[in-house]
């Protein structure tokens, strides 16, 4: 279970798929919750969800496509859960987009991001050289204080960008929450996982309709 922005929607979709989520609602500061039917929920930072699932510490997990693209875990990606929609974008300071000019004069673009692999893959694929500055939070600061020329970050509404005087220039990809499964659990518990996936798919369809 991803703590943070996806958490409430993840609980809601599980509940809609008739999973007993009462232990998660009771909250507290515990990290591991056990439901009466024996289901164990592990709550963790979203970026660690693929780690737990890949290592088999959890059979399945819920995590954003953004994290999957960055971590590239060796897991099955089973279902688009529809919520947590956002976009990975490249943004620079408001006004004229100086990206082309910077590359022409300096050869290399400096980009601050929490997603270095995603950013590197994108700029490489579009034929531009970048110097990546890995930061762990408040990426928007980069262009403001002169740490970088632009940023690559996740935006939902774009409000944070606007409030910090940044403008979206390019979209890398759209993201939403995904259901992932460990490679071995996906086979050893095939019946359980297929049944849950079907119920979740149904819940997502009903929601969307």
């Amino acid at each position, binding site marked *: 279970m991803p703590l943070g922005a996806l958490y409430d929607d993840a609980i809601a979709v599980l509940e809609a798929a008739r999973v007993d989520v009462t232990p998660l609602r009771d909250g507290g500061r515990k990290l591991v919750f056990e439901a009466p039917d024996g289901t164990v929920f592990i709550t963790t930072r979203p970026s660690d969800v693929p780690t737990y699932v890949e290592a088999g510490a959890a059979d399945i997990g819920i995590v954003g496509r953004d994290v999957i693209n960055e971590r590239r875990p060796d897991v099955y*990606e*089973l279902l688009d859960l529809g919520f947590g929609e956002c976009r990975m974008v490249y943004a620079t300071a408001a006004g004229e987009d100086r990206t082309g000019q910077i590359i022409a004069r300096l050869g290399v673009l400096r980009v601050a991001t929490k997603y270095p692999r995603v950013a590197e893959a994108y700029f490489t694929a579009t034929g531009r050289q970048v110097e990546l500055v890995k930061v762990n939070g408040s990426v928007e600061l980069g262009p403001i204080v002169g740490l970088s020329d632009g940023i690559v970050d996740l935006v939902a509404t774009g409000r944070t960008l606007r409030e910090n005087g940044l403008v979206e220039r390019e979209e890398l990809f759209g993201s939403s929450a995904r259901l992932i499964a460990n*490679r*071995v659990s996906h*086979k050893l518990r*095939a019946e359980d996982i*297929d049944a849950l996936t079907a119920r979740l798919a149904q819940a997502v369809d009903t929601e969307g309709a």
Partner: protein
Amino acid sequence: MSPTDVSPPAGALPSGARDVLPVEAAELRAVENALRATFARYGYREVRTPVVEFAEQLERANSGGLERAFRLFDQAGRVLVLRPDLTIPVARLIATRLADHPGPIRVSYTGPSFRVPQPGRPVASEHRQAGAELVGADGPEADAESVLLLREALGAAGLEQIRIGVGDVSVTEAVLGALAVPADVRARLARAAEERDLVAWRREASLLPLGDAERELLAGLPAMRGHADVFTRVAAVVPDAAPECARMTRLLTLLDREGLRDDVLVDLGILRDWQYYSGLVIEAYAAGAALPVAQGGRYDGLAARFGTPRPAVGFTIELELLHRALAGVNGAPRPVFGVVLVGGLDDELELASELRSGGIPVIALTSTDTRADALADAEGWRFVLVRDRDVFRIDDRAAGTSARSARPLEDLSSLR
């Protein structure tokens, strides 16, 4: 700055490298012996290939496996690699050294392979692999032997709960061909399959201009699981894929006859490496191992890249993963049958040699050595034997008992 400031601490190893200590080594050896014995019962003869190969030789396989290989250079500047797996070197060996063998060729192998570890992941750089290849035999009958051999080998190693996932890339290829899926979409589907991204697969498939039934089938293809019913469903919607489906149905019938029905899961989502496999793909799963303990399949095109075209099917077992799954099954290691003999280095030399001739391991100490119990504890030996006036005292550390014995060889042998 003194040299100690820059040298790594004693015992430091490169990332991904590790030592194997006696308990694990003994268990790994037992697992390997069980696998080898099973391979031998099916007439698979052992071969060995060098650890170092020319990169360009292995590149012929075009398997993508070289991306994570350790590379070095020889004196002429040619690129060498530490073999990243054993299947391709063995395929090279069979195609070049056994080119005039009438076939079918059955070979097995055991040895280390090497891959550059990925940062942040618990993956070792050295992996012991064991495998068996059946070359020069086509058809579901050969496929069935390979699956059966894999099941038996894993069983012999002590793994009871196993699930063998069975897929077939040729079924998927046949469906894509019959539905005339354009090349660019195919490439994207192949990529989605490789990344196990069923969401991307479904999205790509659902955009295709197909009939509803066909589109539905294609979108859900890698999520199709079950038994023979999977192929019935595929062939019903895409009749052109019927031959490939019939072949898999025949394989399942053969496996049923071997009593493997409950262990086999048909899963069309097992679509590794399209370039490399040409039909059957198999993966074996065990609780306690986060990755498949074995994988393999049919790769009829590989031998031709080394100059001798021949159909081939086989699998590779990852020994460390298998051992990890077994360690979870078996719990704490049991005491090892062996005797710490006080005086075995001096006063009881004759007894020591008598016991060893009787097949009982003897760990000898001098008669004044007081570390017998500590040693038995540290190394897990089951017995401590010490002279008690005119007889001996046997401490059985597994049973927690102590007994007097006039004839240690007989008494110990009876406890085996």
